[in-house]
């Protein structure tokens, strides 16, 4: 059900871990839905010089976390903010419908970490990221259940 890219990023996730002296840390999702992503950013002169993550979640959650950190490394904050869940999905050669929410979570984790960075540095932001509302019915998970275990 997963593409080879997803499996690769799940089996060999890039950038797993913590950054002890991170400039921004963001955590989204909750245990209730089975997905939590925590993202650590190291930012120098407005550029993301390092990114690491820890994720509790399914294969897609791990893979999207991994891909998201890859995508933002070396980018400016502005560029990083423009990375959507779609970009993450495309970079992974797609996700099954039931797993699209994981890419949304990855986008939100980046946003949360960047917001934390701004807050710590007293920077303004156009929109305040409120954190994932919890179980993500809104992001397509509720009505798309194709790979099921009904034995």
């Amino acid at each position, binding site marked *: 059900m997963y593409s080879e890219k997803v*499996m690769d990023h*799940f*089996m060999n*996730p890039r950038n*797993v*871990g*913590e950054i002890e002296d991170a400039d921004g840390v963001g*955590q989204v999702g909750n*245990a*209730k*839905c*089975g*997905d*939590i*992503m*925590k993202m650590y950013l190291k930012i120098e002169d407005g550029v993301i010089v390092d990114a690491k*993550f*820890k*994720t*509790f*979640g*399914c*294969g897609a*959650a*791990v893979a999207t976390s991994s891909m998201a950190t890859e995508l933002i490394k070396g980018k400016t904050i502005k560029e990083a903010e423009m990375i959507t869940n779609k970009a993450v999905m495309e970079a992974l050669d797609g996700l099954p419908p*039931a797993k699209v929410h994981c890419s949304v979570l990855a986008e939100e984790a980046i946003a949360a970490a960047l917001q934390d960075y701004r807050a710590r540095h007293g920077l303004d932001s156009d929109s305040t990221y409120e954190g994932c509302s919890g*179980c993500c*019915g809104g992001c397509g*998970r*509720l009505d798309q*259940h*194709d*790979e*099921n*275990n*009904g*034995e």
Partner: protein
Amino acid sequence: MEKPVIYLDHAATTYVKPEVFEAMKPYFIEQYGNASSLYDVGRASRKAVEEARAAIARCIGAAEPGEIYFTGSGTEADNWAIKGAVYAARKKGGKHIITSAIEHPAVMETCKFLKKEGFDVTFLPVDSEGFVNPEDVEKAIRPDTVIVSIMYANNEIGTIQPIKAIGEITRKHGVLFHCDAVQAAGTIPIDVRDLGMDLLSISSHKFYGPKGVGALYIRKGVRLENLIHGGHQERGKRAGTENVAGIVGMAKALELAIANMEQYTDKISKLRDKARDLILSRIPYVRLNGPVENRLPGNLNLSFQFIEGESLLLLLDMKGIKASSGSACSSGSLDPSHVLMAIGLTHEIAHGSLRLSFGEHNTEADVDYLVDALEEIVARLRSMSPLYEDFVKANKQT
């Protein structure tokens, strides 16, 4: 080196035993007649179906072969039993169903549908090991109760219900007793008469028979509305040209299972116990879900704290180990297993569950390989889990 394949998901489905396949084979190409036909090609099919019916009746202790009706799955048998009973009883004022909170979706969703249709349904709670209390059944019975549907053994955590006590209660109160024995059949001896059952569902592919065939035992005298209307097959109660090969395979598989039951359950429960003991002693923060006694011999269900089940399954799969999980991510529903929630697990713990179900071909070496693999994978997933990080930090601070 080729990676091994260690199948530990026999509760999901089994392969067809070679002897079973041999028994089925003639009914595809040579003996293809319609079992309802008059001429001899059809009569051979009819004979095969009737012999299968008699064999299954013997295997579950039915009084007569005529009490066995073939269906297209265990799910269909469950749907028919419950819908058929309440539709038939509706005219006489029947409108209440009693079931448990940990039934298989085949029963659960049927009850929810009937609730939408205006019937009342009581979902009895279970204790922390998944047991239904027979006293709760008795208390829930109302004058308009039609049927009590309680599974024989749970597919996720293996809990074997106090079926006999429940059967005594339903008999005493004159309500029907349906038992979903899909997980029990072929592993636990079943005697419908001794157990006081009116209706019992089984499914062939859980005991090394083919998929796509099940059966419903309907005690003589119990009246059900049909679920599938049409031709006169199955004595006018379940329409559709008989799946002769499937029916023959199902009977053969159940006969084999019953003949070897003691040896089989002895073997798989030993493997299961070994796996359980090794895992619990070698991996920290693991919870055993379901009881130790009164449990399906091949079933093991564990929750690994701080990690999520689908990831665990995928990494096990990479090592050749096939298992299943109660995690929402692998079940396609938003919530984790309703069974694990019903026995009181938090979402987080429920998401980290793993079901291992042992079978015929598993060996002691498989168990050793499994435990090594699990130890490594669990450590790896924990090292990348923010929940584990929080836990470790919290422990350090105190």
